[in-house]
């Protein structure tokens, strides 16, 4: 009983690591995880290249249409490879997060003084690394295959910046989905639905050459069209501030929306456990 009256020693003051310490740690984990998954990285990089190789010759005759902006279809279609990479970013990010949920990693993290922003930023780091690798690969392969960048080397750098924004935007959608599902297969099954947004855009022809009225209308309202056109402007037109502003604006807008839903999903998940 005496012991009960003895003052407990003061608990040592715990210094929580700041977000700037937490985020890089989680980012490192996310990047290493991406690097260690060649089965995810290789198809995500190769599949758009295969479609590029096929479409660039399969649709080459489309360049003879009056009003087509270039005589090189590979230059025209190169932009689409970047957007396809974005779809793989949705699946990759969402699936990784769903695996974390399924494996209990998330629950264990919640026992630590982790900052929610560090968690979200860390998860997107792998997407960013993959996006950078894919952008460099597509530009290199495109140039080797005969594409040209009208805006030159600075244009290529802006393309990489826009491609990364697009990957992060799509990755944030994956993050928002991954926060809400507990099985990676459920993220996989969303693949065709996300593909719809790609198909119903100006991916294969410029909007002014799309003859079907409803399709042109849908493509006009589809933000994917503006991201494709932003990238394409650097390849074909040179420097087009309006196309670039719309491209960056749509990518950053989707990123903001995706992060908002990811944050609310994270809050719900925290509340549940």
């Amino acid at each position, binding site marked *: 009983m005496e012991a009960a009256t003895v003052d407990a020693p003061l608990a040592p003051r715990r210094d929580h690591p700041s977000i700037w310490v937490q985020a890089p740690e989680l980012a490192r984990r996310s990047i290493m995880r991406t690097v260690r998954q060649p089965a995810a990285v290789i198809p995500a990089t190769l599949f758009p290249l295969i479609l590029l190789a096929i479409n660039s010759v399969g649709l*080459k005759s*489309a360049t003879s249409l009056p009003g087509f902006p270039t005589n090189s279809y590979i230059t025209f279609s190169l932009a689409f490879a970047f957007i396809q990479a974005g779809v793989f970013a949705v699946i990759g990010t969402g699936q990784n997060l769903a695996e974390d949920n399924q494996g209990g990693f998330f629950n264990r993290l919640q026992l630590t003084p982790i900052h929610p922003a560090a968690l979200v930023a860390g998860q997107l780091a792998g997407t960013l690394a993959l996006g950078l690798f894919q952008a460099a690969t597509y530009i290199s392969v495109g140039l080797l295959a005969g594409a040209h960048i009208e805006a030159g080397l600075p244009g290529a750098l802006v393309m990489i910046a826009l491609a990364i924004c697009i990957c992060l935007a799509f990755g944030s959608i994956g993050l928002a989905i991954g926060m809400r599902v507990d099985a990676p297969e459920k993220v996989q099954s969303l*693949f065709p639905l996300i593909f719809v947004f790609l198909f119903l855009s100006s991916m294969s*022809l410029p909007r002014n050459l799309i003859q*079907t009225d409803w*399709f042109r209308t849908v493509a006009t309202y589809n933000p994917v069209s503006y991201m494709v056109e932003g990238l394409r402007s650097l390849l074909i037109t040179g420097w087009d501030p309006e196309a670039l502003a719309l491209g960056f604006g749509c990518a950053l807008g989707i990123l903001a929306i995706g992060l908002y839903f990811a944050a609310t999903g994270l809050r719900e998940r925290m509340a549940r456990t």
Partner: protein
Amino acid sequence: MRRYLSVAGGLAWRLLHSLLTNPLLFLPPMLMPLFFFTAFAGGLSAVSNVPGFNYSPGYTSFIFAFVLCQSAAFGGVFSGFSIAADFQFGFGRRLLLATPHRSALILGYGIVAAIRAAITITVVSLVALVVGLNIGGSGLDVFGMYALAAIINVTGLLFAAGVALRFRSLQSTPLMQVPVFLFLFLAPVYVPRQLLGGWVHAVAPFNPFTHVMETVRDLIAGTGTEYLATLGIISGLLALTFVFAITGLRRAETAG
């Protein structure tokens, strides 16, 4: 024989039940050909104005031939996914133990592949008719077109089964999808063969899907077609994939 059919029917019923009770497994593969159809027929219709593009029924009908082949082939391939899943999680091994004639298992998965493809093709055909599919061919031509689709469906299933039974893991699904996807896209998908450029023009004649797609387009248009030649080519491919599936089954049996 009765027992053989009973095994195939029982397996097919189980797979159909799990597909119908889980829309997330059934709907996305069915929607995929519709998306392709919408995107290509809607977004690329201007391609029909390219000099040298002479297909009288129109671009929607031209693209329908591709989507028909895709629906049929992937109806088979997706059943290969079910085989891989069943073997990965141990159900396939129990099926091997319980079945005296194991080729009945392939028949069971084949029944599901056929039903799956039939549903997808019906939906795609109805949508195509609504948005402007023009059929100039006779009833016999239309029957011939769907008969070709049925053979492609079986070929797709046997190929996927061969892969699934060799690897017995869901990790092998890209090995089922990607080759079929490549074969489909290395055919004249967007424009007739004479308008294809570069290396695709060089490889297209050696691709069985080129001949199937061109024959389906001729059947839709009601123009003369080399139907028997195409039937011969696709039957040869069917025979090859049959051997591939049966040897795959033997490997699965040996692995136990």
